[in-house]
Each structure stands twice: as structure tokens, then as C-alpha cells.
């Protein structure tokens, strides 16, 4: 099984690569090549930084978005988005201006706003992953989060896990062969590695 890990300049690429290997992946290709994406059995889109910068970085790779869309939407290839890679699944993001997302999971990425000043932003640290709409990859547990913007899903049926930081936040969205997680499985020790291993075994 080959896994295409999309290399578009996101800083956490190597951590995700290491974690996928630790979780049992045989072949993980760091790639910006649409042909490699088209051949892959699994696609992973990492992401740290701002929504717009990640979106621009991804769009700058010729043919990669089209290759991902064809694999995922036409052939049902399992797809995992992590952190900003998950947020990019939305229709749009509102970080530093409004930017268009992939539009694969309806919703908008908005700033986390809390009236209570004791609720610190960024939402940084370990927090609960609480199952919402049942999904085979989601188990209850604790994972590492690090974000100031959150996925506001248009259809609650796509929300497969939530967390709580002075109010509920989406922790994971899913639709067909697509799953996106706001937390960092590559930094979530045992919980994260077991999540990745379920993704590697997933037959959506």
C-alpha cells in the first residue's frame, strides 16, 4: 500500500511521515507530483500555519488538487486531512481575509471567539476527542490540539467528533472516504498512533 503525503511546504511533514511509519505504513511518499497522488492508495494532507498560506501552497503545485479530487471523489481513495489540512476541506476560511477551500465538506473555518478571557487562544494542548456522528476511525480519547480557527460545519452529520474549550469545537469531520482531524495525531502519542493505524486499515 502506498501513501501519498502531500508536500506543499507545511512544516510538520516529517513528523507526520514518522508517525505514519510508526503506525505501520510501508511506503510513504512525500510528494508534490500529481501522478504519485493518482497512484496512491491513501492520501494525507498535513498543514500548519494559516489557511490562506496553506491554500496558496497547495494551489501552487500544478495538478495536485485535481489529482486529489479525482482520487477521492471519483474513486473513493481514503483521504486524511490534519489540522489546517482538515480545515482546507471546508468551502472557505476566514483567517487573514476570506479564502476558498476545497469545498469537500461543507462549512466555513472561523476564528475561535470566547467571551471568557480565562479561555486562552490558541486552543493549545491535550483535550477530549468525543465521538459525535459514529465513525469507524473515531474513538473516545485525548489528543493534542493547536489552533486558533475552527471548522464550522454546515451539516452536523459530517461532524464525527467534538472537543470543548469554553464551548464545543469540531474535532473531526468526515464524509464518504474523507476524514479530517483538527488535532495532531502525529503528536498525540498512543492515541494518535492508533488513530493513524485505523486510517491505514480503513475500508470506507
Amino acid at each position, binding site marked *: 500500500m502506498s501513501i501519498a503525503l502531500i508536500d506543499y511546504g507545511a*512544516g*510538520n511533514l*516529517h*513528523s507526520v511521515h*514518522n*508517525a505514519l511509519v*510508526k503506525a505501520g505504513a510501508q511506503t510513504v511518499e512525500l510528494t508534490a507530483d500529481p501522478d504519485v497522488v493518482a497512484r496512491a492508495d491513501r492520501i494525507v494532507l498535513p498543514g*500548519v*500555519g*494559516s489557511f490562506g*498560506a496553506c491554500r496558496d501552497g497547495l494551489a501552487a503545485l500544478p495538478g495536485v488538487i485535481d489529482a486529489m479530487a479525482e482520487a477521492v471523489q471519483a474513486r473513493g481513495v481514503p483521504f486524511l486531512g490534519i489540522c489546517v489540512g482538515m480545515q482546507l476541506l471546508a468551502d472557505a476560511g476566514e483567517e487573514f481575509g476570506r479564502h476558498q477551500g476545497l469545498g469537500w465538506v461543507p462549512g466555513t473555518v472561523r476564528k475561535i471567539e470566547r467571551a471568557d*478571557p*480565562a*479561555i*486562552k*487562544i*490558541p*486552543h*493549545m*494542548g*491535550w*483535550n*477530549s476527542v468525543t465521538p459525535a456522528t459514529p465513525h469507524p476511525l473515531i474513538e473516545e480519547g*485525548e489528543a*493534542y*490540539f*493547536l*489552533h*486558533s480557527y475552527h471548522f464550522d460545519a454546515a451539516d452536523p452529520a459530517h461532524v464525527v467528533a467534538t472537543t*470543548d*474549550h*469554553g464551548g464545543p469545537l469540531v474535532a473531526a469531520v468526515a464524509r464518504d472516504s474523507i476524514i479530517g482531524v483538527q488535532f*495532531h495525531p*502525529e*503528536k*498525540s*502519542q*498512543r492515541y*494518535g*498512533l492508533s488513530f493513524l493505524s485505523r486510517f491505514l486499515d480503513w475500508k470506507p
Partner: protein
Amino acid sequence: MTVRTRVIPCLDVANGRVVKGVNFVELRDAGDPVEQAKLYDAAGADELCFLDITASHEARGTIIDVVRRTAEVCFMPVTVGGGVRSAEDARALLLAGADKVAVNSAAVSRPEVVADIADRFGSQCIVASVDARRVEPDAQGNPRWEIFTHGGRRATGIDALEHAARLAQLGAGELLVTSMDGDGTKRGYDLALTRAIADAVTVPVIASGGVGTLDHLVEGVRQGHASAVLAASIFHFGQHSIGEAHAALAAAGIPVRTPIL
């Protein structure tokens, strides 16, 4: 339940070797930071901090290798501080596998470096250090703290609270507040300092400097309003485990991670 309070062990590293670290006999190479990082990963530390105190410029690359090797075997967030002077320095560490970089003295002489790094890599990956000492109270008798550099030896004349607010405003995603008076004393954090800063900024604050007991960790959160507590020697010398730190915080009603079984 909200986000859990983090317990962060900090390892001092010089020339790629642990200077102040775990004194465990079972380690094959107790001087290897990666061996120690693995222990803390297995023990359920919420994050790990490497503080690079390498003095010579030539040996600065050694921390990159430590970070790269750590990222291959540890699946926990890692912050690296010490000697980060530019966005390029930050980039090298982030590419090697660091999740966050901490900027100390460079943020005193040139606070804009915080904005440079935040703009390029996002606020989430930049921790700004606030190294402060108590100075004479103001005319009304209110406590005052000033930023010190060079391990607490050199005064800068910069007010610590104003500096902290500026760093947060420039885009730091987190502040590491260290009492240079308390560091190494085991008398506990400077709670008034930690609280004054934590209450003045919207980003999380890590309390640091002076931990000698588990109660100090509890005070850092309860009275200091810190989101995370950093300590070195109480963990390294086997005085307390990460699990005991979590248990002490939990016993005080502070949300922490579920113990690893």
C-alpha cells in the same frame, strides 16, 4: 472539560548533550537527549522542551540533529529554545521536527523577530520567553519586574509586563514566563509575575523557574493562572514522575490528561 493543563519537562542541552537531565541508571546513554526524550514520551509528558545552551556558534547545528532524531521516535509536541535569532533559525528547527520554537534574547533586542516568525510559520509555532526579575516597587508600592538577559545577569530597563503584552501583540502564540530570581532555587514560581502576565494576555502562559515541589506546580495554575507548568530538576532527578505531577494537579481540581496505563 476544557483543555488540559500541560506538564512540560525541560532538558538543558549543550553541544548535543544533556547538561541538566535525568539521572536514571537504566539509560544506555544518559547524556543523549533523545534517550531522555523517549522516557518522557513513555511517561506521558504533555510536551517536551529542549533548551539549547550551546555557547559556541560553530556547535549550534547539534541541536538540529537532536531534534531530528527525537522526532523519529517521540510522538509528542517538542519546543526548542535557545539561540533562535531569526525566521531562518526557526525554519531549520521546525523542518527538523520541532513543533514550536522559543525566542529569548533576540526578542528583547529585536521584538519584531516574533512577528517575522509568526507571519511565516504561524503564531502557533512561536513561544516568546519573558525572563524577568523583581525590581524596586513603583511609587504606589506595586511590584515591578524587569526583563533580564544573559541568564539573569544583565538588566535591560524593560518592564516585564509591557514586554509580555508586546510579544503577544506581535504574534507570539504562547509566553514562557521565567522568574530569574526563582530559577534553580526550588522555592516555587514567582506567582505574582506569572499571574500579572497571564491575566493581561489572551495567549497561554507557561510558568517556569523555581519548582521544587508538586505543590509549586499546583500554585502555578491556581494562583499564577498558568496554562502549563514547566520544570526541570524535580523530574530529572527522580524526585517526582510526570504521573505524580498530573495526579497532584488533578487532586487540586485542575483538569489534566487521563493517566497512561
